[in-house]
C-alpha cells in the first residue's frame, strides 16, 4: 500500500483567542496534533508609551508606566521612581521604603492571583478563577483605600509617596494577611494534588536552566528550572536585605515547577508583607525632604511666600534631573522589571525604556512549545504568565 501523503497545517491562534492573555497571535504549523513550528506575532497592543513619556514631565510619567504591565502596575512605577531617584541622588526615609516594600508585595500577590486563576481555568479548573479573583478583590480594595484608584494607583511618586497612609490601612492589610494563607491552602487543595491538573502540567513545556538564562528569562521561569536568581536577594533595593524570606526554586523546569514556584512566592510575599507592616508606624514621613522634588506642606504654602513659589514651580514646570542614565531593576511578579532612564538635564525624560519580562518570555515561547502537543500550548502560555501590555508597551 502506498504511503499516505500527509500535509502539515498552519493554524492561526489568536490574536483574539481567550487563552492568549490579551492579543498574542501564534502562527502554528501542525503535524496532526504536534507542533512543528511556532511564530509569535506581537505589537497589537503597542501604544507608544515610551515615546509619550518623552513628552511628559518626570512626575507625569508615573501613571504612564503603570499602564505597561497592567497586572503589576506598581512594579513598573517602583522601577521608574527608583531610577529617577538614583539620578537625583535621593535617599528615602525608612518608612517610605517599608511602605514601598509592602505595596510591592501586595501587588505581587494580586498579580499571582490573576495568574493562578486564569492558568487553572484555561486547563480546565474553571472555578479556580472565581476563588482567585475574590481574593484579588480585597487587594483592589486596599489599593482604593490607599490611592482612590483600584487598578493603577500611581501611589509611588518620585521623592516618596503621593500622600500618607489612610486611616484603617493597617487593619485592612492585617485582615487580608490573616485570611490569605488559608486561601492559598485551599487553592493548593484544589490543584497541587489534583490528578487531572498534574497530568496537564507535569513534564510539559520543559526548559532547562541554561536555555532559560540564554533566552533572558530571569524570574519565576528560571527559578522553576533551578536558578536562585532573585533581584531582591542579589541586588537588594528599598531595604529588602533586612527582610527574612526564602527564594523558592524548583528543578524540573516544567509547567508544574513554575506553578509550585509561584504558589510558594505568594506565601513568601505574605511573610515579607507581615514584617513590613510591623515596621510601618501609622503616621510619619511619607516623602523625602528634598525641596527640589517634594512640594512643601500645605500649611506653609498658605502662610509663607517662598513655600508658595516652590509649590507653584513644582506643579507648573516640574523639577529637573541631572543629565545621565540609570538602569534600576526590581523583582516584578514576572521576573526582572528594569527601567532604563536617560536624562538630558531638563524637566522631561530624554528616554524611558522598560525591560519587559513578558517580551522575553514570548520570544522564547517557540523554544518551549515546539514538538509539543497543541493542547499544551495553553498550559505553557499560562505558566509563562505573559501580559501583552508589558510585552508591547
Amino acid at each position: 500500500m502506498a504511503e499516505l501523503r500527509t500535509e502539515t497545517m498552519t493554524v492561526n491562534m489568536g490574536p483574539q483567542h481567550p487563552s492568549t492573555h490579551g492579543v498574542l497571535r501564534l502562527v502554528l504549523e501542525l503535524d496532526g496534533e504536534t507542533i512543528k513550528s511556532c511564530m509569535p506575532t506581537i505589537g497589537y497592543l503597542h501604544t507608544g508609551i515610551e515615546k509619550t513619556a518623552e513628552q511628559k514631565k518626570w512626575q507625569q510619567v508615573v501613571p504612564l508606566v503603570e499602564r505597561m504591565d497592567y497586572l503589576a502596575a506598581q512594579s513598573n512605577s517602583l522601577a521608574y521612581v527608583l531610577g529617577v531617584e538614583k539620578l537625583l541622588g535621593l535617599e528615602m526615609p525608612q518608612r517610605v521604603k517599608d511602605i514601598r516594600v509592602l505595596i510591592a508585595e501586595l501587588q505581587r500577590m494580586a498579580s499571582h492571583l490573576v495568574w493562578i486563576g486564569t492558568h487553572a481555568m484555561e486547563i480546565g479548573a474553571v472555578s479556580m478563577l472565581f476563588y482567585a479573583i475574590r481574593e484579588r478583590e480585597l487587594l483592589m480594595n486596599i489599593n482604593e483605600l490607599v490611592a482612590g484608584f483600584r487598578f493603577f494607583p500611581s501611589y509611588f511618586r518620585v521623592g516618596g509617596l503621593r500622600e500618607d497612609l489612610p486611616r484603617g490601612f493597617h487593619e485592612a492589610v492585617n485582615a487580608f494577611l490573616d485570611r490569605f494563607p488559608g486561601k492559598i491552602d485551599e487553592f493548593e487543595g484544589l490543584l497541587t494534588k489534583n490528578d487531572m491538573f498534574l497530568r496537564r502540567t507535569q513534564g510539559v513545556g520543559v526548559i532547562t536552566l541554561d536555555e532559560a538564562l540564554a533566552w533572558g528569562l530571569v524570574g519565576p521561569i528560571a527559578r522553576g528550572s533551578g536558578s536562585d536568581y532573585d533581584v531582591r536577594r542579589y541586588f537588594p533595593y528599598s531595604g529588602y536585605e533586612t527582610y527574612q524570606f526564602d527564594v523558592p526554586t524548583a528543578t524540573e523546569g516544567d509547567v508544574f515547577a513554575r506553578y509550585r514556584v509561584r504558589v510558594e512566592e505568594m506565601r513568601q510575599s505574605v511573610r515579607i508583607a507581615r514584617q513590613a507592616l510591623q515596621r510601618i508606624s501609622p503616621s510619619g514621613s511619607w516623602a523625602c525632604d528634598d525641596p527640589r522634588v517634594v512640594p512643601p506642606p500645605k500649611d506653609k504654602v498658605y502662610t509663607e511666600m517662598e513655600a508658595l513659589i516652590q509649590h507653584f514651580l513644582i506643579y507648573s514646570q516640574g523639577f529637573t534631573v541631572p543629565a545621565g542614565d540609570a538602569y534600576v531593576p526590581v523583582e516584578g511578579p514576572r521576573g526582572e522589571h528594569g527601567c532604563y532612564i536617560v536624562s538630558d538635564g531638563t524637566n522631561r525624560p530624554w528616554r524611558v525604556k522598560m525591560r519587559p519580562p513578558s517580551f522575553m518570555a514570548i520570544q522564547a515561547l517557540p523554544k518551549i512549545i515546539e514538538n509539543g502537543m497543541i493542547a499544551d500550548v495553553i498550559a505553557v502560555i499560562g505558566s509563562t504568565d505573559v501580559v501583552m501590555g508589558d510585552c508591547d508597551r
Partner: protein
Amino acid sequence: MDATSIINTLAPLMPDVSYESGQSVDFATIYVPAPSLVETCRALRDTPSLRFNVLLEVTAADYLPREPRFEVVYHLLSIPNRLRLRVKVRVGSNEIDGVVPTVQSVWPAAGWPEREVWDMFGIVFAGHTDLRRLLMPEDWEGHPARKDYPVQIRKAAQTYEPLEVTEDEFKANIERDRLKRAH
C-alpha cells in the same frame, strides 16, 4: 567591579581594541567599538572572572543632534559573580557607521530586542536572522522612537486589496508549498 577593572580584564584578551569607560551612577559602563562587539561580548560571557551569562535587554537612545547620533545599549547580568554591566556602542545615522553586528550568536535572547531597536530607531543589525518590524505594522514608514519623528501624526488607515487568484494559480500555489515542505 568598576569599568576600569573590567577593561583591564578584557585588554589582554582583545589586544587591538580600545575600550572607553563611561560615566554612570549605578554600575559600570563601557564603550565598545562596533566592529569588535561580538568578540568582546563572547569574552564577557566566557571569561571566568566576568561570566556575563544573561543579556537582559538591548535598547538604544537617540541623541540628536549629536554625532554619532545613536547609542545602542546592552544591559548584561552575571549571576555567578553578582555583576551588572552596561555596554554601549556609538552608532551614526548613515549607511557606513549606522550598522552594528548582531550578538545573537552569543546570547540568543538578542533576537527580538534587536528587532525592536531596528523597528523603533532604524539601526541595522548586520547578520541578524530575522530583521523585520516587530511592534509596528509591517508596512509602517519611519522609525517612531527617533527624536525627529513627529509625536502627533495623522496617517491614513492602511488598506489592502483582496488577493485575487485564478483557480489555476491557486492550485499551482498549493503544489509549490507542498514541494517546498517536502524538501
